[in-house]
């Protein structure tokens, strides 16, 4: 517990507090009057309103589209399932600029919807909502589906034997068990969309603005730190209340469940209804997720005999000092390190949070760990500048800092994915093992680990994806001859000329493949002791 707290305090709480204080303190006195000044501006209130409602709408839409997907991935077996599960996570790692490109192929001019029905959604709020679904589909499928696949189907069957209708059995047995995972997924989607930045900028055009965009503008462009500080506080309060609400609703529902090994719960669909459901979900995935990605691949192949890919292996002396292809290795190195840190810190935190003797303070920490997802990035970044700028906090092992920062965002994923599963482990199992003379470590290894291993891998996958798609930090820390994939893509897109554009598309494609393959490998990581219950 101490380690996650320290990590969180040093790398998050302190810098944020420092920058907010810098903005609100003029000549040594606090200017709390600024808060009412800012709130009195009608355009700020408008931004706040838009931010909230689009986040709610995006979350609802994502759940609506993705929950059937979670069911299908959890309960059905079909060819290519594992590959598909990895592929739906790919949107997660793509730089927003690239996603904008891809997504316009679906909803923009001459896009699929335009061709079919003459519908153009770009620069409407629908484009934003759909893009949020595109990004967050995997969040729901992975968090909810992960737990769902471990619920024992026999419980529902037993209820049916006792005379419950199919719907009633699902409502009374499965739904309550799934509740916490659904709530956790909804919370994450809400936090992402509430603090959405790139998607809103690119697809909404400049007419739509979220709090995050506004904070960025005030900090980076206008340099009005006081307004930025006020907006940060507003966002903080909003996110804090959401987290509190979430913690309160979930805690009342998390109960021990009977978890079984996931490999035994999925089977071939039976009957027309199930096949139709499977078909419907696959169609959604193809249109909403694969089509935009396919556009990128197609554009990367637009030169004769892989010309753009071949160009990647030459250093042009301009944008990079090394061939862009070397970015793959850099990206993987950072991602592996970030994943290890996030899993270690997040795992420790999750384990501490599930202990029965966890007091109120510890439980409150659960919500705190989510805050990095809900605080403006630019605030934290500027906070570092002024908070952590001298020894004793001597962080000279430079390259590890990138993964450390990425881990800060990865940790909430790990905690959120593991908590529902860990809390669902029946305490009596642990107690029984302890009575039989097992050491705490052995209890964890024999009881908890087999049950949470799956959640752990899913969480690691998320942390990995977060890190892989991370953009810009390495530009900053490493030398320009050390770019990661998203950094390289952004640099190429930032210049005119066909070869640059083509190489950006080719690198984006490589980024997708690297991500999908990495996730596949993670999913296949089976310790050879698959617990049979």
């Amino acid at each position, binding site marked *: 517990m101490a380690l996650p707290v320290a990590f969180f305090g040093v790398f998050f709480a302190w810098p944020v507090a420092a920058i907010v204080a810098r903005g609100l303190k003029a000549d040594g006195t606090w200017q709390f009057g600024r808060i009412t000044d800012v709130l009195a501006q009608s355009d700020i209130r408008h931004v706040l309103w838009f931010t909230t409602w689009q986040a709610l709408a995006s979350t609802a839409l994502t759940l609506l589209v993705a929950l059937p997907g979670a069911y299908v991935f959890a309960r059905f077996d079909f060819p290519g399932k594992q590959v598909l599960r990895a592929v739906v996570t790919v949107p997660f790692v793509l730089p927003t600029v690239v996603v904008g490109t891809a997504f316009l192929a679906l909803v923009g001019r001459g896009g699929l919807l335009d061709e079919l029905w003459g519908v153009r959604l770009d620069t409407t709020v629908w484009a934003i909502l759909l893009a949020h679904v595109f990004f967050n589909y995997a969040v729901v499928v992975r968090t909810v589906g992960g737990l769902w696949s471990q619920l024992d189907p026999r419980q529902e069957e037993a209820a049916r034997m006792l005379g419950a209708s199919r719907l009633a059995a699902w409502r009374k047995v499965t739904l309550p068990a799934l509740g916490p995972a659904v709530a956790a997924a909804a919370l994450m989607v809400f936090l992402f969309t509430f603090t959405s930045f790139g998607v809103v900028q690119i697809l909404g055009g400049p007419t739509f603005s979220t709090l995050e965009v506004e904070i960025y503008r005030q900090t980076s462009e206008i340099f009005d730190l006081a307004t930025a500080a006020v907006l940060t506080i507003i966002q903080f309060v909003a996110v804090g209340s959401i987290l509190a609400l979430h913690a309160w609703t979930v805690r009342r529902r998390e109960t021990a469940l009977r978890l079984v090994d996931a490999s035994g719960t999925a089977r071939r669909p039976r009957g027309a209804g199930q096949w139709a459901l499977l078909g419907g979900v696959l169609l959604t995935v193809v249109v909403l997720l694969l089509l935009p990605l396919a556009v990128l691949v197609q554009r990367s192949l637009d030169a004769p005999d892989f010309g753009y890919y071949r160009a990647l292996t030459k250093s042009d002396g301009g944008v990079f000092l090394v061939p862009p292809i070397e970015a793959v290795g850099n990206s993987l190195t950072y991602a592996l390190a970030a994943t290890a840190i996030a899993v270690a810190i997040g795992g420790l935190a999750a384990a501490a949070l599930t202990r029965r003797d966890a007091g109120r303070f510890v439980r409150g920490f659960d919500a705190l760990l989510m805050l990095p997802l809900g605080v403006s990035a630019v605030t934290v970044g500027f906070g570092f500048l002024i908070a952590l700028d001298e020894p004793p906090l001597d962080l000279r092992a430079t390259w590890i800092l990138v993964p450390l920062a990425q881990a800060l965002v990865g940790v909430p994923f790990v905690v959120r994915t593991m908590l529902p599963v860990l809390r669902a482990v029946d305490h009596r199992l642990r107690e029984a093992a302890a009575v039989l003379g097992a050491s705490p470590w052995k209890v964890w290894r024999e009881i908890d680990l087999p049950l949470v291993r799956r959640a752990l891998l899913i969480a690691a996958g998320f942390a990995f994806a977060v890190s892989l798609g991370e953009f810009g930090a390495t530009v900053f*820390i490493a030398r320009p001859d050390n770019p990661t994939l998203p950094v390289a893509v952004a640099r190429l*897109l930032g*210049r005119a000329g066909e070869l640059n554009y083509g190489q950006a598309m080719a690198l984006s494609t490589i980024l997708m493949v690297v991500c999908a393959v990495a996730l596949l490998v993670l999913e296949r990581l089976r310790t050879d002791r698959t617990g049979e219950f």
Partner: protein
Amino acid sequence: MSITKKATVLAVGFGLVALSACGSSDSDNDSGGGGSKTVTLVSHNSWAVSKSVLAAFEKESGYKVKVLEDGDAGQAVNKAILTKDNPQGDVFFGVDNTLLSRALDNGLFQSYEAKGSDLILPAYRVDENKHRVTPIDTGDICVNYDKAYFSEHKLDPPASFDDLVKPAYKNLLVTENASTSSPGLGFLLGTAAKYGDGGWEGYWTKLKANGVKVVDGWEQAYNEEFSGSAGGKKAKADRPLVVSYASSPPAEVIYADPKPTTAPTGVAEGTCFRQVEYAGLLSNAGNSKGGKALLDFLLTKRFQEDMPLNMFVYPVREAAEVPQEFTKYGPQAKDPETLDPAEIAANRDQWVKSWTSLVLK
């Protein structure tokens, strides 16, 4: 997307810590400004230099150059100001004329007259009594046009700001958000220079009525909406006019395979706003001696002639040669609009605010 961005910024923060930690370790023991063998350049994401040119400097001067890229131009300047008491490096490169006053007013730089300052073309010289900054490069923000579109429609491309509001060019122009994009801001400042503090709003009202489209950033405007770029062709873009740079057409030639004999795009020469980028020695630089050497290097003929093909900008030093692609496909505007940095500083935020409510609402 927000999470990766978040991680980025966090990481950037960490980086700062690390670097400032390194920086201080390098330089704490030589507050006299000598001795340290590393010199750190803080810049924005567009910084680029040829390996051989940088290596030559390192070899001749004996300094190892560390480069820190600190986000986009605006962000990099703001971060430098925030950390000016304990800076992340020795030299800052990349503050342009739209932000220059903010940097100077906040005391970001200390005086140093770089070697070769006397060779800077007079048009670009600023701050000549204090020498807090040195001009390094210049570029023009201009409307680019898609040649194919205009020859197909037997229409002359626009040549001036006035042309852009004519009915013939209705719904053809795409520009960037002035509050988040540097070319977008440059174009707004160009109209403010041309029509004056009282007149630019009227011009934009006409431009809006003539169907100007505004998107958030240059990448999107150029690669998605502009029909003359490679990306735009693939995206079936339908805007043949875009606010970009005078050096974009040469890039379209240099980065094409096979290279065409003429550029696919051209520059509307009467729509340009001149940007100048400056560098300076940071006020509390740990290695001021190395910083001075680095500033001298940025003005050498070798570096000035290396810049165009790396950063797509023009040199400020007289008699520095530009590659022929530049002279052939993207000649510098003869009479670009300019504004005094002090005037920009006085009006910038107000103009952007008015522009936002006028054009975006």
